[in-house]
């Protein structure tokens, strides 16, 4: 039973991964990559160049610029996802009228496939026909070229990702809240704890396991959130909204296809995430979390 599993994981993940790492150490581009044109087979002529690609990337200003924006984008998005998700979950986690209606409405954005969400929002942001500008005009304000200016474009893509991602956090937090025994709150209330103290000493620790998981997942997903950026701004204007992943993609599949450079970007991104996960895990361990 085990053998096929190892073979499958090795073939599906291991081999492409190893090859990706190898490519990142070569100078493979469209021109040097072997290919078949009609009946002519042109052999690969790329060569092993060691860490050349990595040196090029890490010494370029572009990488650091993209890294700063990617980190900013991730922190902003995950922070807002978590904050809003937790806030809404706390609001929903009580007896009230229309509770299930609110819950359903708030979950809806999650049900929209990301690429569809990207297209919807691109339309909403449209300078001439977008409803957001129409509303601004109706309110007596000027239209904004949302996706034409680096700053507004950044705000715009963050807003979309927040819209897409909050429902997941909300549902996860709601699940976490409901797994906290109600007796704890009752006991605390009897002891005269204030709502803030109850939140601080019961809710927060009770949510720790769920929180740590969804924050890590959310961080990885956001860091690698390809479709939204790719379809809404295409990385533009200029390359202001380009995150590391979309840049690596563009490197490989537009202009002269730089396969090795793109692979090196990919390896760097992966290493960043692995390091992040390890550090995160260690931090959780210190707090006594057995994850």
């Amino acid at each position, binding site marked *: *039973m085990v053998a096929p*599993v*190892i073979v*499958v994981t090795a073939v*599906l*993940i291991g081999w492409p*991964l190893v*090859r990706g790492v190898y*490519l990142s150490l070569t100078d493979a581009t469209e021109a040097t990559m072997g290919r078949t044109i009609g009946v002519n087979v042109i052999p690969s002529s790329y060569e092993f160049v060691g860490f050349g690609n990595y040196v090029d990337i890490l010494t370029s200003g572009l990488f650091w610029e993209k890294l700063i924006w990617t980190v900013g984008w991730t922190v902003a998005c995950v922070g807002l996802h978590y904050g809003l998700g937790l806030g*809404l979950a*706390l*609001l929903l*986690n009580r*007896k*009230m*009228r*229309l*509770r299930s209606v609110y819950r*359903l*409405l*708030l*979950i*809806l*954005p*999650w*049900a*929209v*496939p990301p*690429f*569809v*969400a990207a*297209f919807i929002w*691109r*339309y909403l942001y449209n300078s001439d*026909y977008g409803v957001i500008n129409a509303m601004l005009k109706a309110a007596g304000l000027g239209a904004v070229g949302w996706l034409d200016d680096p700053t507004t474009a950044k705000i715009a893509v963050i807003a979309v990702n927040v*819209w897409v991602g909050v429902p997941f956090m909300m*549902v996860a937090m709601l699940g*976490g*809240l409901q*797994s906290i025994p109600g007796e704890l*709150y009752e006991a605390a209330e009897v002891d005269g704890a204030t709502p803030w103290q109850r939140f601080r000493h019961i809710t927060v620790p009770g949510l720790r*396991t*769920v929180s740590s998981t*969804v924050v*890590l*997942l959310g961080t*990885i997903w956001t*860091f*690698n959130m*390809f*479709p939204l950026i*790719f379809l809404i701004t295409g990385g533009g204007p200029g390359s202001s909204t380009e995150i590391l*992943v979309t840049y690596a993609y563009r490197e490989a599949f537009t202009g002269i296809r730089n396969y090795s450079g*793109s*692979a090196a970007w*990919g390896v760097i991104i*992966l290493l960043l*995430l692995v390091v992040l*996960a390890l550090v995160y895990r260690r931090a959780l361990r210190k707090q006594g979390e057995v*994850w």
Partner: protein
Amino acid sequence: MSTVTAGPTRRGRARGRGERSVGSSILLHGTLVVASLVALFPIVWLILTSLKPRDGWLSTELTFFDNSSLGNYARVLTETQFPNWLLNSVIIAGLTTVIGVFLASTTGYAVSRFRFPGYRGVMWMLLITQMFPVAILIVPLYNLMAGLGLLNQIPGLVIAYMTVAVPFCAWMMKGYFDSIPREIDQAGMIDGLTPFGTFWRVILPLARPSIAVTAFYSFMTAWGEVAYASVFMTGEETRTLAAGLQQFVGQHWSDWGLLTASAVLIALPAAVIFLLVQRHLVAGLTAGATKS
């Protein structure tokens, strides 16, 4: 962990024994109404736009239902490649789901029950693939597919999606299998079943909820993926929805009428399925990640 609705006991931070004050009630409902509007508005606007006449998207006027028509839908279904893309997406997502669930559940079971040489390696691989940026696998896969003549072929894309879906799903399945007592396996063995027989006849039926989540996740991965679909499928007749829709709104020419109608056609069935399974979804996702 479950996401069932409120039980009979009072939970959370409801005020003392009494009811909420009128003020905080208004505040609570007010906040939730605003949040719901934000959540809902883009979707409603999409549907309204899709129902506008042919060039209706050129105006932001809210015409609601006067003058509305299904013209955009008719155009999408008859004058574009949309039905073709839809068929491709259904086939690709369907295959990814079936094969993905099979591979993920066998892998998940193996790492849950057996200790074998390379066990740590497999676990490690499953974990870090959750962090794979599209960029690291896409280039080697692209070259691999090119070498095997699988570019622009449905099986090629299915394999590519499997590299994304299988590791994560296997991870989730492992978490679930871990929660099934080993005594059940042993009982199956004692009844004379082979290890695979035990897995197939005894354990899999027990893991149905987790399989549903896995199937859903695999399906959605394939259904909504953009990067692989955009570079692997270059022929007009093999495009998937995610790649095809980009045709409607290019840099220089856009037809938002077509786009909104097809977006509704894509999102509606996906949303229905999603709302049916979402309760199990978070439990599945977090179980897979926490029980490691």
